[in-house]
């Protein structure tokens, strides 16, 4: 008989797609039918029918034979006995492999601790200012505009702004509050004198800020000679006695009555430094020029804050729209800067303050995102470790799975076994993580300038954290659970397990390698980022400042006595021998407070809108701070004409386009100044910005701080008491408060250093976690290849070549990670540096160093295991077979 065979393609399709367990019989049946059909109706008919019938037994048409599940129907996976068995096995395998367990649990705990810390930090950032009940309706009045192509935003407002908003736009506001800036003032009660920061606020401020009064009333501020104290200040001044009704003094001149005590503002609020509140009316009485500015409508002096609470029936947007042209209306001459008045809602104060030159928001919200992402990544790294180690160890557990299946375990039972195991590990890690967080919080708070605590009592916190742990457990446990439980017992138990080794070794090593690459990409990116942050700080710190910070201290002039006796005070101080020189100025050397326009000079373009930093100094300022002259000379008492003398910095000369400026006249505010000298740029504002064009003019009346240069041959601890004694004599009313200029200067780096330190912390943790994982993997690989290494040694392999053999794979993975990390870091750090005008450049050195660093850490980690394996005696590893 001419034996024809069924069409090959259809047959191939059948073998590929038909369920395995019924393939044999169906294949046979169809073959038999094909022969039957072809003998009855010919080959074509048979082929057609064969095709049709093959399709009828392919999915989705075909049914699968079910395994005999019904007989286990009542065997619930969650019986107590079963659960306790799972836990017992989990416990035993944890104890048996102490190293792995330590790596698993430790890594996961560190990862979770980091995630919890970051979570708490983000929560704190997001809940900033929520203490105030009118959170949703309070806003600050901001001035914006465009000057020299750059958008600016400022919270400084003119004095008549408050009355204007109250009278003209009153319908839109529940409260309009005028406010001074938070400054240090001297509070005195009897003999007790304290320097505390506080504000002058309009009388309705306590209602707007919903002060929690502990004693007295909010209405107390309506009396112009009153003061509200925070609880801490009240305690410091009056002890436990009730201060309400007592009279005290502000700055040794203003007599006030305490009319109330309020609960201190929490640390995570904008107003945390307001330790006392005095009435705005008192401020006006004390400083008549401000009252004058307010009443006669001086719209050009921007020196105060205005806070508002909008009416219940309106929104920030509509009110902003209504008030936007106030400045234009009152100062039409500034139309060229396109001035606008807007409201900034309280919910944006903390996270959305800060704008780039184009006016885009560049606030802390970016750091919230950044750290949020880092937190997720660190946790991910820990989860990856867990998955990697579990799958790597799967060969060890494969036999267990085989036996469990052989005695009748269902796949779902195995899945729940492995999940309960990973949940147990997560639970242990969770407890450890909470402990770790509790231990590291003080340090973390210190670095991050926060007062965060674990929210023990918050149900939301617990709910979140439990959901998050469960999620971690499920994600981390899913791979082993689903993968291990899919082993076929016969293959696992057959013994040599060549097929098993294939599945466990090659096939699963690819995802594992991908995970290692992800881990190290994150770690190397973090290393590069942190190094660049520190480089930038170092770069700015090494910038020439143009004066001498060492031994320079400043004392604020907060009482009239100090200003009146300039020469007497200076002579008395010089007599002590503790100082080299003393001078006064309108601002300390570390803070350029004042900028002005309206200067006029020879050759000035009429359309040029000038803007210069202005500082008033005394004759001795130069000698005190040690500025350096490029041309001309310092201000001197020998020249009486120097009473209208002026010193420019180099930038100002360039800015004004002056040629040979010494001796030239400059007019400002109707006064003529004569340039006597040019100094090297003195860095007074941000160390990351270019130095502003600045003029230093002689003026003894416009003085806010006393600058003192300590005698370098004596120690500060020796000099300071002597200086203090002199101050006590001249200014008996106030405590002697001084600031070291180098410390003030260093504080300009605080924000950057904070980022750097936090970044460093997270980087170290990320590397730690990644290395833990690598260590585990390396030891696993070494263990798996014990026999191979034994045979190689017997055949004459050297320790070095074995070490290379075992380390090579990991080094390649880390190299790949570096290739990914470098461009990522390049892109993000490049963008970060763009924020600073004065910034370091990205150099290949950093990238190379970070890569080399990561590689060497990897090699160290891996070598420990690989050298151990390479040194092992082959007799021992080969004997057992």
């Amino acid at each position, binding site marked *: 008989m001419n034996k024809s065979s069924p069409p090959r393609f259809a047959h191939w399709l059948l073998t590929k797609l038909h369920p395995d367990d*019924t393939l*044999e*019989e*169906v*294949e*046979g*049946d*169809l*073959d*038999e*039918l094909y*022969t*039957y059909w072809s003998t009855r109706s010919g080959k074509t008919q048979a082929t057609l029918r064969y095709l*049709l*019938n093959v*399709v*009828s*037994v392919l999915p989705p*048409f*075909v*049914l*699968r*034979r*079910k395994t005999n599940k019904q007989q286990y129907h009542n065997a619930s996976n969650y019986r107590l006995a079963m659960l306790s068995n799972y836990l017992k096995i989990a416990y035993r395998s944890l104890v048996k492999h102490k190293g792995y367990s330590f790596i698993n649990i430790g890594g996961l705990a560190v990862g979770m601790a980091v995630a919890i810390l970051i979570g708490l930090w983000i929560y704190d950032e997001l809940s900033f200012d929520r203490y105030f009940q009118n959170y949703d309706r309070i806003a600050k009045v901001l001035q914006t505009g465009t000057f020299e192509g750059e958008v600016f935003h400022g919270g400084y407002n003119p004095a008549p702004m408050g009355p204007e908003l109250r009278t003209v736009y009153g319908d839109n506001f529940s409260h309009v509050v005028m406010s001074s800036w938070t400054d240090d003032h001297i509070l005195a009660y009897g003999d007790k004198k304290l320097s505390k920061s506080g504000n002058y606020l309009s009388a309705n401020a306590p209602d707007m800020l919903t002060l929690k009064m502990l004693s007295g009333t909010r209405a107390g501020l309506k009396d112009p000679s009153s003061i509200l104290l925070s609880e801490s200040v009240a305690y410091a001044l009056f002890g436990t006695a009730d201060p309400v009704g007592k009279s005290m003094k502000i700055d040794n001149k203003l007599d006030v009555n305490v009319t109330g005590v309020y609960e201190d503002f929490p640390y995570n609020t904008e107003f945390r430094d307001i330790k006392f509140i005095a009435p705005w009316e008192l401020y006006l009485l004390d400083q008549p020029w401000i009252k004058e500015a307010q009443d006669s409508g001086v719209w050009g002096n921007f020196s105060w804050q205005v806070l508002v609470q909008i009416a219940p029936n309106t929104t920030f947007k509509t009110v902003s729209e209504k008030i936007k042209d106030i400045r234009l209306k009152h100062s039409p001459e500034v139309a060229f800067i396109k001035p606008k008045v807007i409201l900034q809602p309280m919910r944006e104060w903390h996270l959305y303050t800060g704008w780039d030159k184009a006016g885009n928001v560049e606030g802390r919200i970016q750091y919230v995102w950044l750290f949020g992402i880092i937190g997720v990544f660190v946790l991910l790294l820990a989860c990856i470790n867990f998955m990697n180690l579990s799958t790597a160890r799967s060969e060890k557990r494969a036999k267990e799975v085989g036996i469990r299946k052989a005695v009748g375990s269902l796949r779902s039972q195995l899945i729940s076994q492995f999940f309960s195991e990973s949940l147990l590990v997560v639970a242990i890690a969770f407890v450890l993580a909470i402990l770790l967080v509790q231990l590291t919080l003080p340090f973390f708070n210190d670095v991050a300038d926060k007062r965060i605590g674990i929210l023990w009592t918050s149900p939301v916190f617990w709910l979140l954290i439990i959901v998050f742990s469960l999620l971690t457990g499920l994600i981390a446990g899913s791979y082993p659970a689903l993968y291990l439980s899919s082993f076929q017992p016969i293959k696992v138990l057959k013994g040599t397990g060549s097929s098993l080794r294939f599945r466990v070794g090659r096939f699963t090593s690819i995802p594992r390698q991908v995970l290692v690459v992800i881990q190290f990409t994150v770690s190397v990116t973090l290393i590069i980022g942190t190094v660049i942050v520190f480089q930038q700080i170092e770069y700015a710190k090494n910038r020439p400042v143009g004066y001498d910070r060492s031994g320079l201290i400043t004392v604020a002039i907060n009482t009239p006595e100090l200003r009146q006796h300039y020469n007497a005070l200076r002579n008395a101080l010089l007599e002590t021998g503790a100082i080299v020189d003393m001078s006064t100025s309108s601002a300390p050397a570390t803070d350029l407070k004042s900028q002005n326009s309206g200067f006029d000079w020879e050759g000035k373009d009429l359309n040029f809108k000038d803007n210069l930093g202005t500082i008033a100094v005394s004759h001795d300022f130069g000698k005190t701070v040690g500025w350096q002259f490029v041309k001309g000379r310092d201000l001197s008492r020998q020249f009486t004409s120097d009473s209208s003398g002026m010193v420019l910095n180099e930038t100002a000369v360039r800015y004004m386009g002056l040629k040979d400026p010494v001796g030239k006249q400059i007019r400002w505010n109707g006064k003529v100044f004569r340039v006597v000298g040019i100094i090297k740029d003195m860095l007074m504002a941000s160390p990351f910005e270019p130095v502003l064009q600045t003029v230093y003019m002689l003026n003894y009346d416009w003085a806010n701080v006393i600058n003192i240069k300590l005698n370098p041959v004596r120690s500060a601890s020796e000099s300071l008491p002597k200086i203090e004694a002199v101050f006590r004599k001249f200014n008996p009313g106030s405590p002697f408060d001084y600031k070291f200029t180098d410390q003030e200067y260093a504080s300009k780096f605080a924000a950057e250093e904070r980022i750097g330190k936090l970044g460093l912390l997270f980087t170290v943790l990320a590397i730690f976690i990644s290395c833990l994982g690598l260590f585990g993997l390396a030891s696993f690989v070494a263990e798996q290849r014990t026999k191979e290494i034994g045979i190689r040694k017997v055949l004459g392999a050297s320790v070095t070549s074995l070490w290379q053999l075992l380390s090579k794979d990991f080094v390649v993975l880390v190299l790949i990670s570096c290739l990914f990390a470098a461009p990522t870091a390049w892109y993000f750090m490049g963008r970060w540096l763009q924020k600073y005008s004065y910034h370091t450049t990205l150099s290949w050195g950093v990238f190379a160093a970070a890569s080399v660093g990561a590689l060497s850490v990897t090699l160290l980690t891996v070598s420990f295991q690989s050298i151990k394996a390479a040194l092992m005696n082959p007799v021992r590893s080969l004997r057992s077979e």
Partner: protein
Amino acid sequence: MRRTYLGEFEEVVLLMVAILDGEGYGVTVSQALEEHTGRIVTFGTVHNTLIRLEEKGFVRSELGGATAERGGRRKRLFRITALGSRALQEIQQLRQDLWQLLPPNTLQLNGI
């Protein structure tokens, strides 16, 4: 007793398995169906029905009887179980009872 629903086609296939008495497998059942009822159905239908009958416990199966004709592959041979034969008998009994209830002339009239 738990009554298991038995569809019309399932009933016919079950009868075939009973008729073939131990020799029933995919091919023979299909051929018998074609021969005795004239119904041509796809092999998948028969295959699925046999699986379903086995799940319901009406037949049991075992592998065996490899022949050269089918390339040495084994057959899955089906045999009716006690539950299966009782189900068939019950159906038969039910039909007979119902026939008894039929008024004498109804079918004759309709049959014309």
